[in-house]
């Protein structure tokens, strides 16, 4: 077993190619430091990110997911990020209701020129994940609290 | 129809658990058409390779581990046992994964399952093979079987078609049969191209023109369901009785042994009671379920 302190969270980032992905690039070329915990998937628009991607990432064991797109009003496709915002909003709220820690799904607006902001976001999100610990959502053995008895005593 | 007697079939290959696959290794891959590949393979365990027996028309379940399992007929002939072959068209999840594999890759194999072409019944008869697209795969097992025992059978006619010239599978076989003076082959395509010298037209139509005699003949048909549906009436017109028409069917299968419940046509399970049927056996259901 690894020590608690050695554990590093794995973060999956879905970055819009028009802004946040370029922002990440800029962070790299301008030597802004950010944690190596993030694995990046380039998407054509934050609006491309289906809630399924997020769930699948958590199911596969990623400790957190970051969706990042263009600032409101700046979408290359006019409205993609607005749609993403609605979708991520309900996904996030719903997952939190189910018992997923809020830190595991994060979203940000990062433009192509905001290399600094990108590194801050990743640092911040990674820190948040370190606080909640490894994702064991889908690994847990059956130990759930018994729900209260319902009906249908017979078939 | 009662439950199939499987005692006369080559023994299925399994430890004591019919669901456990054996490991086979891909030895060669032939690109038949843009979407179809033939895989030559052999058992990893040399002893099993020696012991394995099957008959023309039988199929097996092939696993790509981690993706799943699917049935394909064994398309090579038991008369040429140095390796086994099957052909797969890239159409779904499993076949996509299959087409990503290279020589040396390992597959799971369990079988052989199902019945086979009734060689005793075919003996001494004129044989008319009617194939479409990848439907030639099960037929070619039998055709090579017949050619390797040529004196046991009478006249052999082959009518084979595909959508376009590049969709013709097993072109090396077609050439070989074309050269073979003991068999008569007609190849057709739905749409020709500039280089195409053969016939143009749908298989049932070309079959009707070729008009093979029904006397002492058996027709063996395999192809896409739509082709099968249109070929039977043509054969009937040519004087073939339902008992003189054989086909081999393809259905969705999971278990391959008559348990999982998907491949039935009426009370017949394609995997257990087939895949080879006479038209007589399935004609009640064929209009509505196939």
């Amino acid at each position: 077993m690894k020590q608690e302190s050695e554990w590093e969270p794995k973060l999956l980032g879905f970055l819009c190619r028009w802004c946040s992905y370029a922002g990440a690039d800029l962070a790299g070329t301008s030597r802004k430091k950010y944690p190596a915990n993030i694995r990046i998937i380039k998407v054509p628009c934050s609006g491309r990110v289906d809630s399924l991607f997020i769930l699948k990432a958590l199911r596969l064991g990623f400790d957190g997911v970051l969706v990042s797109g263009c600032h409101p009003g700046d979408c290359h496709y006019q409205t993609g990020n607005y749609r993403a915002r609605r979708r991520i909003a309900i996904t996030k709220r719903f997952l939190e209701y189910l018992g997923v820690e809020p830190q595991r799904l994060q979203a940000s607006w990062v433009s192509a020129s905001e290399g600094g902001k990108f590194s801050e976001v990743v640092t911040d999100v990674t820190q948040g994940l370190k606080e909640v610990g490894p994702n064991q959502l889908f690994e847990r053995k059956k130990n759930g609290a018994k729900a209260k008895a319902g009906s249908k005593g017979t078939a | 129809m009662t439950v199939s007697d499987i005692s006369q079939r080559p023994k299925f290959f399994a430890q004591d658990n019919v669901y456990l696959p054996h490991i086979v290794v891909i030895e060669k891959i032939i690109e038949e058409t843009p979407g179809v590949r033939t895989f030559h393979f052999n058992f990893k365990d040399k002893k099993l390779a020696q012991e394995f027996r099957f008959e023309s028309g039988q199929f097996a379940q092939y696993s790509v581990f981690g993706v799943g399992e699917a049935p394909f007929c064994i398309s090579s002939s038991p008369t040429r046992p140095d390796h086994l072959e099957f052909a797969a068209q890239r159409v779904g999840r499993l076949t996509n994964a299959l087409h990503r594999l290279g020589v040396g890759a390992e597959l799971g194999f369990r079988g052989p399952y199902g019945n086979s072409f009734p060689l005793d019944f075919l003996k001494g008869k004129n044989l008319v093979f009617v194939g479409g697209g990848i439907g030639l795969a099960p037929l070619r097992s039998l055709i090579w079987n017949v050619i390797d025992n040529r004196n046991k059978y009478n006249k052999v006619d082959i009518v084979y078609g595909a959508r376009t010239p590049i969709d013709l599978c097993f072109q090396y076989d077609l050439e070989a049969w074309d050269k073979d003076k003991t068999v008569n082959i007609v190849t057709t395509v739905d749409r020709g191209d500039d280089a195409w010298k053969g016939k143009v037209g749908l298989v049932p139509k070309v079959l009707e023109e070729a008009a093979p005699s029904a006397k002492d003949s058996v027709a063996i048909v395999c192809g896409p369901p739509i082709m099968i549906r249109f070929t039977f009436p043509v054969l009937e017109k040519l004087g073939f009785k339902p008992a003189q028409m054989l086909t081999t069917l393809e259905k969705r299968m999971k278990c391959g042994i008559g348990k999982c419940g998907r491949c039935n046509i009426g009370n017949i399970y394609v995997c257990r009671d087939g895949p080879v049927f006479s038209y007589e056996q399935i004609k009640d259901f064929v209009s509505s379920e196939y």
Partner: protein
Amino acid sequence: MEQKLRQEAKALLEQGKVDWIIGFAPGSLKFTTTPLITQDKDDAEQLVINPFITNNLANFLTEIKGRVGIVAKGCESRSIVSLIQDNKVARENLVILAVPCPGIIDLAKIERLVGKDRDELDDITRDGDRVSVKVDGKKKEFPIAQVLFDHCLACELPTPQEYDIILGEPRLPAPELKVSGQSIASLKEMTPAERWASWENELSRCIRCYACRNVCPACFCQRCFVEETEPQWTLPMPHWQDNLIFQIIRNIHVAGRCTDCGECERVCPVNIPLRSLTREMYDIVGELFQFKSGMDKDALPLMVHYEQEEAEDFFR
């Protein structure tokens, strides 16, 4: 009300105004009804309206071709409106026969109250806001708040807004949110870990019969994501992990379409409290976007529309 319905339905078919009538007929078991989907005017005689018309008939609209006369309670009318928003059905092909609905009786609640199964009861009758149950020759009375479905107690639209013919006097909503929201409230009292564990436990019973999905008018995809093979998002087998993902995504997909008709929870053969998922999503959508499903047929669907400024608070 029943007589009027039968006359209207028969006339609609006779005059060729509709090709189909969808309504409720008596079921084959005590206290049940069954959907009646017919083209035969004589079948109109079988139509009933009673406290057991549970199904959401809007579910059948997407698979029926032609003009349809449909019996609709408030929740059905909302589902119909939602389908109109999504261009799944055309308003001009529908004749909506509105039933002002006083709420549907939840037999499972009665079973729990009297400790008997539904087929052991002699009679259930409703009189205003009391329901009396006859069992073993004795009569027991309950206030409706104890025996109606939770979703009926939360009903915001007992009388359809969108209709062509109305059967009876309109009813006003009288939501009892406190009673109907009990199960969600008790879930919210738990810690996140306890909640997740509770869902793990509930979803472990799931057998993947997909009744929740197939009974849902808002689940109209031709091919559901759980059955997709390339890529295969979840395995089509009852692993609790995959079951839970199925429910999460299903709820996200029907957000803004779900009208809290409660059918998913009613039909679940293994008693998974699915309404505690759907209702929470309903409330989230209402809170974040002030969106109420199936209220306005000219409104844009939730996920098609957006406002310049909304739901910003958690974006960095």
